[in-house]
């Protein structure tokens, strides 16, 4: 069964509760390697070691089976498969030493998945996110006349097929599963405003989802089943400075208009890290550009600390001022109000 590795960028230590999928040997081997090397360091995950250990484990297997078993979302033309594996096995030795510290634990998010487009032996597009689709479709009501709108919640399964195309100014990635019953496409575009100033940005220009309502697992008793396409209209999302990857923990929602009676399909992306252009080294993200919601959350978390420190300083200043004030104004021995305090005076 095809299996994917997850390459989390999370800041937390590995959580054992999340589920690696059950591709036994590669899983075990990789986990063994995980335990040996990861410990408690926080790390930026590279693809490196996970791929390499999977590759190393199956170095002796046939190439076609290998492709599916590893489940790396890699795109290789059929003729280059062997060369790629030879390359991989060599790479695995090298990367095994170099990128040990890039490994992080399994992602706690079971929906999160990584999609990589490779061209010419190098990665040109990497996308990592968890996505959920809410697709409305029509169902015949019990009276046989009315149509009720139901909603199907679709998640990306493991082992989807990835195709993609990279370019200098445009890139796209296409993910399909269940024999092309569902196809999810992301289109990126890079805009060069003023090359001298470096104001280049890249963004998502179009999102598309093709779905087939005759597919039985998600669409139950759909009325007039057929294929439909939901596309975005004039979308400009995930705007990032060029040369950087986009990172956002908070969920982002897009609405696509479907050809099925203009229904609105909701695409909810979370835990995103995407880079469609300018990937410098294999399987590594460039420095991340955080989305505004994350920045705000960071600020929200930082603010109590700052305020707490200010409050502490305020208290210390107040106490010291009061203490000085007491010392300054307490020259004369005050006559006690209560005779029982006379003994304090008479003690000398």
């Amino acid at each position, binding site marked *: 069964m095809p299996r994917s590795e997850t390459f989390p960028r999370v800041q937390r230590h590995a959580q054992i509760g999340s589920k690696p999928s059950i591709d036994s040997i590669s899983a075990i081997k990789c986990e063994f390697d995980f335990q040996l090397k990861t410990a408690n360091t926080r790390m930026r995950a590279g693809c490196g070691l996970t791929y390499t250990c999977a590759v190393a484990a199956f170095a002796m297997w046939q190439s076609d089976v290998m492709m599916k078993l590893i489940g790396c979302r890699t795109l290789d033309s059929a003729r280059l498969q062997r060369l790629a594996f030879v390359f991989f096995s060599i790479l695995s030795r090298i990367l095994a030493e170099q990128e040990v510290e890039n490994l992080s634990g399994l992602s706690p998010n079971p929906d999160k998945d990584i999609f990589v487009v490779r061209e010419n032996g190098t990665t040109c597009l990497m996308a990592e996110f968890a996505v959920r689709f809410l697709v409305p479709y029509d169902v015949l009501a019990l009276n046989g006349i009315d149509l009720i709108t139901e909603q199907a919640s679709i998640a990306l399964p493991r082992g989807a097929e990835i195709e993609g195309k990279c370019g200098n100014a445009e890139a796209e990635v296409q993910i399909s599963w269940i024999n092309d019953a569902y196809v999810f496409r992301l289109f990126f575009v890079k805009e060069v405003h003023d090359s001298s100033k470096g104001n280049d940005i890249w963004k998502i220009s179009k999102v598309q989802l093709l779905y087939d309502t005759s597919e039985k697992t998600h669409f139950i008793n759909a009325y007039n089943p057929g294929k439909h396409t939901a596309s975005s209209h004039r979308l400009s999302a995930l705007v990032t400075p060029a040369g950087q990857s986009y990172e956002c923990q908070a969920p982002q929602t897009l609405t696509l208009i479907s050809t099925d009676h203009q229904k609105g399909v909701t695409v909810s992306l979370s835990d995103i890290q995407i880079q469609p252009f300018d990937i410098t080294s294999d399987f590594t993200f460039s420095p991340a550009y955080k989305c505004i919601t994350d920045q705000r959350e960071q600020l*929200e978390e930082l*603010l*109590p600390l700052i*305020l*707490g420190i200010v409050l502490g300083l305020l*208290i210390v200043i107040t106490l010291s001022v009061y203490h000085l004030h007491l010392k300054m104004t307490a020259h004369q021995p005050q*006559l006690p*109000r*209560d*005779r029982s305090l006379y003994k304090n005076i008479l003690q000398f």
Partner: protein
Amino acid sequence: MATLIRGKISNKLSNAATSVSNKSQAKVSGMFAKLGFQAATDEEGLGFVACDDLDYEYRQGMQMDILSTDGAGGEGAGGAAGGESGVAEGDSHYQREGTGPPPSTSKDGGVCEELAAKDNPKITAWEAGWNVTNAIQGMFVLGLPYAILHGGYLGLFLIIFAAVVCCYTGKILIACLYEENEDGELVRVRDSYVDIANACCAPRFPALGGHVVNVAQIIELVMTCILYVVVSGNLMYNSFPSLPVSQKSWSIIATAALLPCAFLKNLKAVSKFSLLCTLAHFVINVLVIAYCLSRARDWAWDKVKFYIDVKKFPISIGIIVFSYTSQIFLPSLEGNMQKPNEFHCMMNWTHIAACILKGLFALVAYLTWADATKEVITDNLPSTIRAVVNLFLVAKALLSYPLPFFAAVEVLEKSFFQEGGRAVFPDCYGGDGRLKSWGLSLRCALVVFTLLMAIYVPHFALLMGLTGSLTGAGLCFLLPSLFHLKLLWRKLLWHHVFFDVAIFVIGGICSISGFIHSMEGLIEAYKYNIED
């Protein structure tokens, strides 16, 4: 001969006249002395002298006489003519009756109280009223329409009934402070709730009752303080969701605003805050009731129910009943009043006002929104009014904080920080009556402690419901009736005994039901949190 006789008669008459005028003058100046006005000598000198018995008797013979008469309970023997004879009379009175020491202690206490009056001024009945109103008209008034939603007319009746019961328990608690002396007059022998508890457990466990009441008081007061911090943080957070300031940050800001409470010295300053708090509460009431009246056409009179929702109503009982808890503050309030005999009047009027306002508010708000009434009524308001009401609520929460804080500080200082080895730590106050620096730092530490609890304890409202049903019910219903029965058993009429027993039973039931429902709520909240 006739002239001689006439002369003697006129002498006698003039002597009598002077003696009467002197006596009245002495009475007046004695009254003035008691009120704190120093007649002739300067304050410092009089203070020093006053604390010394002999000097005092020498200089103020008549006054000592008058005060000794008052203190010893009406001899009325004083009346000498003129100063010297007065002194002689007073002296002989002093020596003969042997009433020197008791009047001297009471007079000593009385005159020293005058001196202390400038550090610890007495509060008027109005100020005591503001304090009690601050305690009984709290933030929970916002949950009352929801209680009516689930309780119907029974909820309204309960509001009135709880006011009556709490007024009665407050009065019997204060009655426990007094004892009749041998002359049939009521004398204040106990000073605080702790003293009453100690007196009740006196023969076998002289300090156990005091410890129990101390712990309950401290828990209740500190939890109230923490609740105000939580509420103000929550309200500010809900009022400005667009700012990147989280609820924790708002709580810290609120605590910074509350830091000056550490400098509170006496009840008079606290009463000023309570007055402002009452004004803010009044404004909130007026705003909400005015808005509801503007929608009077849509009132749903037929929706007020006669039956109750058995699952949800017990929580409402808790909200209604425990909102009238002011008994913790009553002993110290009554002890600081200038005229303690106005206490009963003040209690009556504050409870009547609270009852009317709460009932009106709850009924009117419920009629406006009927089934859509939310747990906190401000959620039903349109957003402009809600913003204004939220701001006033925050102001009210911040202004309500000084009273429980001051009471908590007093309780802590009395139990842990006393002079002369009576308690664990030395006195917080220096010889001149000013707060020592480390006393101030302890108060600041208490403020910071309330802040930390407000930030880090989750589901605080439920926790407060839990402790409130134990300590609040105990201090408010169970203990006053118990102490009243124990201490004044011989003087109680049958209907007093009946009321006390009934209140004890009802209070026990409310406490147990509140405890069970709070535990259920807490368990559910934790399960939901863990599943999250």
